């Protein structure tokens, strides 16, 4: 197999084009009086219920990157690929604790981004801008990751990758331009239906073909024991990577954007309880990587690991199903790219342009600027994804971004619980966190996000510890000099739920 007939291409293009068209049609979905409003365009006017938010947020966890990078990591590093599940388990209790508070304060004060909140919490537009720019810098490689994730699919289908990717993602930019958050919300529903269908078929069929799970794990263990348990030296790296990624996820602009799209905090709490079920499929996706090892008869070299998922599908399924599964991967990259570009555009508009360049900008002007920024960001991500080195080891790209975004944790999460944090202490922590992350990454030549000199600890967590220590020392100095006071203009009661 591996060669495609005309009908396979029909299946592929019908699905991909169908989703792109749905993105444009989303403009008419629950259409507001005006779309020329940053809140309507940017966060769907706080309108989405439990079901839509489930797909919108689930879309963040379950993307093209998931389908390609998680089996890829499992195929080259064995059980290390399971970090995605450990990470998935640790995401939602944090979401449950923090995001209802964030939603309440954002609804009361009309915030569109986390940096909007930081500005008022600390009475500091400079700190807000730092948080905003960190978000954008972390987000762009994440978008590029979505694009790189589907390059291999394009290549296997003999579609010229550069042209195909450019057309697909400019259309994504186009539908986000028109429909705002409504586009990823509507397309996420279709996307998840397709991905779930593809993954369920694969995880049922592949183990059967390999003689059942037991036999598959045995064969994998015989090839290399790291497929069934971690090498003990990687234990610290494994748990810190999982914990760090879990803490980082809802600091990303797109996750906050999706959360603020919810119509009330009940929607967010319910989803925190329900979304973990996505992890079940994520676990099976990781196991596809182990199946790839068994089929290949050896571990994948990390430079080829992105091929693990396409390999399994190409070699074990008829071409029509392969076309369907590949369409699922492509669709899985479109939806996240849309919401990620949107979240970054909102940050640049609100916390850089509005704050520093034109404070008279109306909501209409802001919504238009954000639209054009979406296009600019997607073009930038496209260029980024065409850099050859980026397409190798794509999972590490995201972990770099994760290490940076983690350094906004004190400003965004900690401040939800205390009004006493001082902007200078938090700013210094951010500087130390970001600076040290860069230093550590340099020291190991950007080869990984795990820091070998210290037991392979995840650099994001190591820097976060230094960051928090700096914040602690800063607060201690303010305490000793008697300068600790309530900061910002937000009252504690504004974090509470609305009365019915």
């Amino acid at each position, binding site marked *: 197999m591996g060669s495609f007939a005309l009908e396979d291409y029909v299946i592929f293009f019908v699905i991909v084009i169908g989703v792109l068209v749905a993105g444009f049609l989303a403009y008419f979905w629950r259409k507001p009086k005006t779309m020329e409003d940053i809140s309507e365009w940017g966060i769907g006017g*706080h*309108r989405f219920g439990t079901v839509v938010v489930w797909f919108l947020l689930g879309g963040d966890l379950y993307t093209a990157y998931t389908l390609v990078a998680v089996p890829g990591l499992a195929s080259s590093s064995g*059980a290390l690929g*399971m970090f995605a*599940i*450990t990470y*998935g*388990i*640790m995401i*939602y*209790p944090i979401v*449950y*604790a923090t995001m*209802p508070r964030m939603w*309440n304060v954002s*609804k009361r004060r009309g915030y569109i981004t986390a940096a909007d909140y930081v500005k008022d919490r600390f009475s500091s537009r400079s700190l807000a801008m730092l948080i905003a720019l960190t978000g954008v810098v972390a987000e762009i490689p994440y978008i590029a990751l979505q694009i790189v994730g589907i390059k291999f699919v394009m290549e296997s289908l003999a579609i010229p990758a550069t042209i195909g990717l450019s057309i697909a993602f400019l259309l994504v930019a186009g539908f986000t331009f028109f429909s705002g958050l409504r586009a990823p919300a509507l397309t996420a529903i279709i996307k998840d239906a397709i991905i779930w269908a593809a993954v369920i078929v694969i995880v049922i069929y592949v183990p059967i073909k390999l003689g*059942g*799970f*037991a*036999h*598959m*794990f*045995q064969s994998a*263990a015989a090839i290399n024991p790291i497929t*069934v*348990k*971690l090498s*003990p030296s990687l*234990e*610290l790296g*494994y*748990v810190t990577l*999982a*914990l760090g990624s879990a803490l980082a996820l809802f600091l990303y602009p797109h996750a906050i954007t999706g959360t603020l799209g919810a*119509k*009330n*905090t*009940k*929607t*967010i*709490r*319910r989803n*925190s*309880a*329900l979304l*973990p*079920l996505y*992890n*079940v499929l994520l*676990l099976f996706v990781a*196991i596809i990587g182990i199946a790839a090892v068994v089929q290949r008869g050896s571990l994948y070299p990390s430079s080829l690991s992105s091929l693990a998922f396409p390999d399994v599908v190409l070699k074990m399924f008829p071409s029509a199903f392969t076309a369907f599964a590949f369409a699922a991967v492509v669709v899985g990259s479109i939806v996240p790219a849309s919401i990620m570009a949107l979240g970054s555009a909102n940050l640049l508009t609100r916390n850089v342009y509005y704050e520093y360049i034109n404070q008279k900008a109306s909501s209409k002007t802001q919504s238009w600027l954000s639209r054009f920024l979406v296009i600019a960001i997607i073009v930038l991500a496209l260029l980024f994804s065409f850099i050859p080195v980026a397409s190798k080891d794509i999972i590490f790209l995201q972990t770099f971004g994760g290490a940076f975004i983690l350094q906004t944790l004190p400003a965004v999460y900690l401040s939800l619980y205390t009004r006493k944090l001082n902007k200078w202490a938090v700013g210094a922590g951010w500087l130390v966190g970001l600076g040290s992350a860069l230093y550590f990454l340099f020291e190991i030549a950007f080869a990984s996000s795990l820091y070998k000199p210290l037991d392979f600890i995840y650099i994001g967590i190591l820097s976060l510890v230094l960051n928090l220590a700096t914040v602690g020392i800063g607060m201690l100095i303010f305490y000793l000099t008697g300068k600790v006071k309530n900061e910002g203009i937000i009252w504690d009661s504004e974090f509470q*739920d*609305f*009365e*019915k």
Partner: protein
Amino acid sequence: MNAILKFILLAIPYFFMVLGIGIYNRVNPTLGGWPFFYWYQLVWIFIAAILTSVVYLLERKDKNLGTGGA
């Protein structure tokens, strides 16, 4: 509901996932051919979801949470 109880219920998975690594990074006992490392995590997906659901249900019982503001 009691904030401390809520915190404990939400924090439990972190203890078993982060500090538990030395315990769950093993192959045996297997379950249906699955190495312990894999099925332990499969089980924890459900436990973590249940814990968060319990917090939600307890909070909802206390007061009618977050239905306004829409």
